[in-house]
């Protein structure tokens, strides 16, 4: 194999750190891997039907009105807000490099998180950290 298997790649991510390999394998079999070219759009402002993306390799850049607001790397995720509150994205997300993600379609996110509470807890921790940074930034 020229490349590590997708299951190996997923098992290295903090988000899945507490899952046994069999469960990671079932996630890898259930959801598609998506590869984006540098500069390619992953999420589009105002358009419906988004997904939760977990970055496996590469970097994504989040832009609002063309201005860069954040960058995410391996193990981080995006697209969850639109899915969780059923609203269209208010930002564009683009691949800053070749970007490999696990894509969990919007309608599958709730059953996915309920099936894997350890992943949900890790996601909540990340959300809490992001919220704290935003709050600090607003009050600074």
């Amino acid at each position, binding site marked *: *194999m*020229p*490349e590590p*298997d*997708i299951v190996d790649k997923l098992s290295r991510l903090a988000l899945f750190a507490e899952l046994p*390999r*069999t*469960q990671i*394998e*079932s996630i*890898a*079999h*259930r959801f*598609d*891997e*998506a*590869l*984006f*070219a540098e500069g*390619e*759009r992953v999420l*589009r402002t*105002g*358009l*419906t*039907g988004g*997904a939760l993306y977990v970055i496996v390799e590469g970097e994504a850049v989040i832009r609002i009105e063309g201005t860069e607001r954040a960058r995410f790397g391996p193990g981080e995720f995006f697209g969850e807000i639109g899915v969780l509150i059923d609203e269209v994205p208010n930002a564009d997300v683009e691949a800053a490099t*070749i970007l*490999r993600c696990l*894509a*969990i*379609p*919007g*309608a*599958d996110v709730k059953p996915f998180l309920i099936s894997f509470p350890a992943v949900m807890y890790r996601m909540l921790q990340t959300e809490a950290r992001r919220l704290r940074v935003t709050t600090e930034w607003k009050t600074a």
Partner: protein
Amino acid sequence: MEDGVEAAPFPPGDYDVVVVGSGPGGLQVSHSLSRRGVDHAVISQDDAPGGMFRRFPIFERLISWTRPDAPFERGTREYEWYDHNSLIGENGARALVPEFMDRTFDVPSRAEMEAALIAFTERAGVRVRYGVRWTGTRRDAERFVLETTDGEYRCRFAVFAVGVTEAWPAPIEGAELANHYVKTRSVASYQGKRVVIIGKRNSGFEIANGLLPWAKELVLVSPRPVKIDVLPQSPLRLRYLQPYEEFVRGGAGTYVVDASIVGVQRASGALRVVADGTTWPGRLEFEADDVILATGFRAPLLDLRELGVATVLNDRVPALTPYFESISTPGLFFAGNVTQGSKGPRKHGASPNSTSVNGFRYNARVAADHIADRLGLERSRPELERSELVPFLLAEFCRAPELWIQKNFLARVVTVRDGDLRDEGIVPLEHFLDAGGEDAVAAAIEMDPEAEIHPTLYVRRSGRIAEHELPPHPVHAFDGPEYRRELETILKSVG
């Protein structure tokens, strides 16, 4: 020239485009390139057209339908929607599959499909140099060099239509003790055997279905559960129904198990498959006389990875742009089943029908048109009157086979510049959404997570996209007055 097959066209040399493969993807792309006047060669390692349909499916029956009789005449564009297996040629080279079907089923047999592909090459005049194997690839300045058993072909663009039929080497311990799907023997040799099939996708259930009358015990095992809620709506149900029904109704000797494979081992004259549950806790061991790996296939990319071609779906297929070009090695295009490497906008997680002829025949046309554009060839962009715009889009919503088959993937695009409206033809929706450009509208057909079908209009104005998802209709009559009114309102300020 005899029977439409020329002895050996396309000697090694320099061409604008070289197409590798003579399955449906290669034949369609060659025909579509010819329609645009693109100088190209077609080479194939086989000695006759047909590609995978010369060998597969092993159990001889396709899963995609063709309705020999339909509300529209064979040969019309509208009829294509009723015929998911024929390639799209001009004049006599359309709707060929129904000509060969004996109507035992509404899905053709492998042999009927192969006969239709042979007829396509004859009637569409697609020429192929057969018996030439592509052996390597390199760059030479601005051109690619394809090394073959007949010599070297140089080209600006290469199109690989080489199928996705190479065994995917599943990382399973003891995999060498099992046979892959591609090496499945005649059914009679499995008579009275205990067979474990690793894999629960299309090929796994195809084998299970074929072996039910022969094997004495059948176990299908893989980590992912069968999506029983979506199965009744999938063309794959033909393969799944029988084995799955035996299992869920408690039939003895047929099991469908969700488990991750620990390994395949030798066990006193037989084999043993050890598996850990994914949807249940614990370990199971299955004794078997034969283990078949239905773990999927990959494209035979030869040395293309070394040329920088990035792959996706666990290294099975190249990752492709909306025009089916490698995302990492520009100039290398792909056609056929491998175009599943182009994902489209993925709205609601939708996947296009690019793994079957019905979808990839349109992908091939789109790629051929794009290659012709890149070579600077003139493209016809018919003018539309402003008053024609709404009826034109409504007709596309109702009957465009490209939109209905490649939902949320291909779109009909009309550009608007200073009141000048142009039909740009069928365009990848992802390209329309992301590439920017002049003001335009794109009509697409889309399916929501509840499987409701919506006509959807995207309007691009000053580079910004607005999405207008219209309501579903019980018989998809999207040209009624309510749709007309809604389109007129949306398009009031367009043009």
